[in-house]
């Protein structure tokens, strides 16, 4: 925020108030002999279509401002035009890397509004699917982050493991990326025995692979030089911007929606919330890798305790179902942080208003302040360590 205000104060061209962001704040640099660079919307390390306006002095960043909206798809507005039942496929496309969590957030919000009971087996299946999806999201982040740092090989190893998760999740859900697996009042299909056997096989496999990840990357001195003491985000700053997920946990706060606002059956599992007090990119890195292990623990317990029963509630909403009037809020822990959905119903068969709280949006707002005074290469490292998914940020 402070950066924004500062820029407004020194706006060199007050007559340009009608212009766009660039002409208002960046057309002329703050200082002499600086270079204004558009990092994106087509840039290899902005992961999609994020545009970052950067003013550099040599390679040092004087200021950087993310410009959003290149992938805005009006998901919130679409919700007002679809029925409750029809809106579910959209949730797989907000954050395509952790689609299950968004599925869950929406299903949870509607269930809370209408008081729909979810069968116990469905709750377990939701946990398994969501945690497996979290692992696959973290694996992809790991590979893509190293790609940002110039190592090409890790992403291939990560994809090797990720592919197994996709195979498992494909069995019940039928898709490999944009899952539309959850239903209001349960899930779309059951995990069959083959899928469960595959999960049991996968857990030790990934545990066996994690030491290799550590040897190849985590311990590497070059990587350490690129992530240690880079992008230090003090807890106070995270609080100010509303950062959640691994970003805030990497700054030392053990805030996890699964613990802080327990939902579903997460209170039945034993797992830790990894935190790190270093506040740098390395802290966020190690928190995510530790989360992979914790998610494996949860999946292991959930598969072992999976009860028999229905996977979809008997009173599950039909396509033209109308919920009662009212409003509800439901938050889940996504791979990037707290996913919140606020739902207002006017009693008709489509939502009156649906607000999506994307964790990536808050996490990205840190970037402007965190990247000040760093090198261009560090800015790439910081951007990567925030784990951005642009479709989620723009919604």
């Amino acid at each position, binding site marked *: 925020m402070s950066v924004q205000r500062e820029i407004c104060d020194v706006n060199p061209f007050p007559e340009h108030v009608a212009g766009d962001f660039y002409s208002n704040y960046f057309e002329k640099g703050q200082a002499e002999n600086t270079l204004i660079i558009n990092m994106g919307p087509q840039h290899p390390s902005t992961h999609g279509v994020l545009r970052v306006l950067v003013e550099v002095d040599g390679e040092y960043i004087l200021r950087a401002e993310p410009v959003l909206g290149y992938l805005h798809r009006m998901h919130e507005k679409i919700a007002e035009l679809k029925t409750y*039942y029809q809106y579910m*496929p959209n949730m797989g496309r907000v954050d395509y890397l952790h689609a299950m969590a968004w599925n869950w957030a929406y299903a949870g919000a509607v269930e809370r509004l209408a008081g729909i009971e979810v069968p116990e087996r469905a709750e377990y299946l939701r946990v398994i699917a969501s945690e497996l999806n979290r692992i696959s999201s973290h694996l992809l982040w790991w590979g893509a982050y190293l790609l940002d740092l110039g190592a090409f090989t890790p992403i291939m*190893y990560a994809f090797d493991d990720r592919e197994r998760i996709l195979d498992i999740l494909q069995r019940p859900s039928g898709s490999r990326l*944009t899952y*539309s697996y959850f239903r209001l009042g349960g899930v779309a*299909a059951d995990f069959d025995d083959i899928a469960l056997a595959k999960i049991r096989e996968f857990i030790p496999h990934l545990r066996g692979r994690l030491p290799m990840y550590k040897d190849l990357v985590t311990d590497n001195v070059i990587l350490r030089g690129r992530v240690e003491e880079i992008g230090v985000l003090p807890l106070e700053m995270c609080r100010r911007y509303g950062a959640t997920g691994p970003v805030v946990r990497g700054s030392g706060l053990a805030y996890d929606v699964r613990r802080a606002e327990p939902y579903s059956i997460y209170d039945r599992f034993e797992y830790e919330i990894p935190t790190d007090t270093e506040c740098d990119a390395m802290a966020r890195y190690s928190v995510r890798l530790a989360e992979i292990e914790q998610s494996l623990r949860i999946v292991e317990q959930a598969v072992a305790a999976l009860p028999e029963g229905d996977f979809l509630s008997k009173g599950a909403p039909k396509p033209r179902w109308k919920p009662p009037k009212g409003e509800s809020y439901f938050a889940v822990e996504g791979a990037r942080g707290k996913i919140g959905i606020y739902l207002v119903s006017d009693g008709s068969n489509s939502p009156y208003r649906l607000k999506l709280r994307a964790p990536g949006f808050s996490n990205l707002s840190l970037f402007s302040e965190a990247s000040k005074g760093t090198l261009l290469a560090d800015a790439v490292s910081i951007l990567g360590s925030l784990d951005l998914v642009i479709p989620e940020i723009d919604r």
Partner: protein
Amino acid sequence: MSAPTSITEKITRLWSLIVGLKVTGKYFTKPQVTLHYPRKTLDDENLLTYRGHIELVGLPKKPGTPKCISCGMCQAVCPSNCITLTKRKPPKPTEAEKKAMEEAEARGEKVKKPSAPKDPASFNLDYTLCSLCGCCVENCPVESIRFSNDIYLAGTDPNAFRYDLLQRLKEQAAAKPGAQKAQAASGGETGEGEA
């Protein structure tokens, strides 16, 4: 290079480079994990769980005719409006029938007008719009829709993905008349049978 580090720490740091080389060196000699498409394709287990575009399920006795009763549920429930379904019109009565009907009406009897056949006149899918959510499959009252396993789809023309599903069902029935029944029975394999 901030805090001064001890010699042993420096050595462990340099050693990490060798460890990294060892990892990649080890994988260099290991067999590949990718598949040489199109020389090899995935095993069936992986293909059958994949949900391709939807297709119609034929009647067990008449595989060329869909189970569909033209209720329009799939069309109504689809979030992407990719299904276009038209009902059949009732058959036009012949001259003699028409006359008989008029006479009966004149006599004040209750006339039973010929009803339309239940199967649809046309059933088109615009796959370019589909989001593969499965709403239509779950909500079909007679289980006449299922997911196909066509995963190797490629085309240069969007019209190639606008399917006439009735035509497709007829072709399928003609291609393997014997296998149709078994395939129809295994339609619920994706686990999408009821909801």
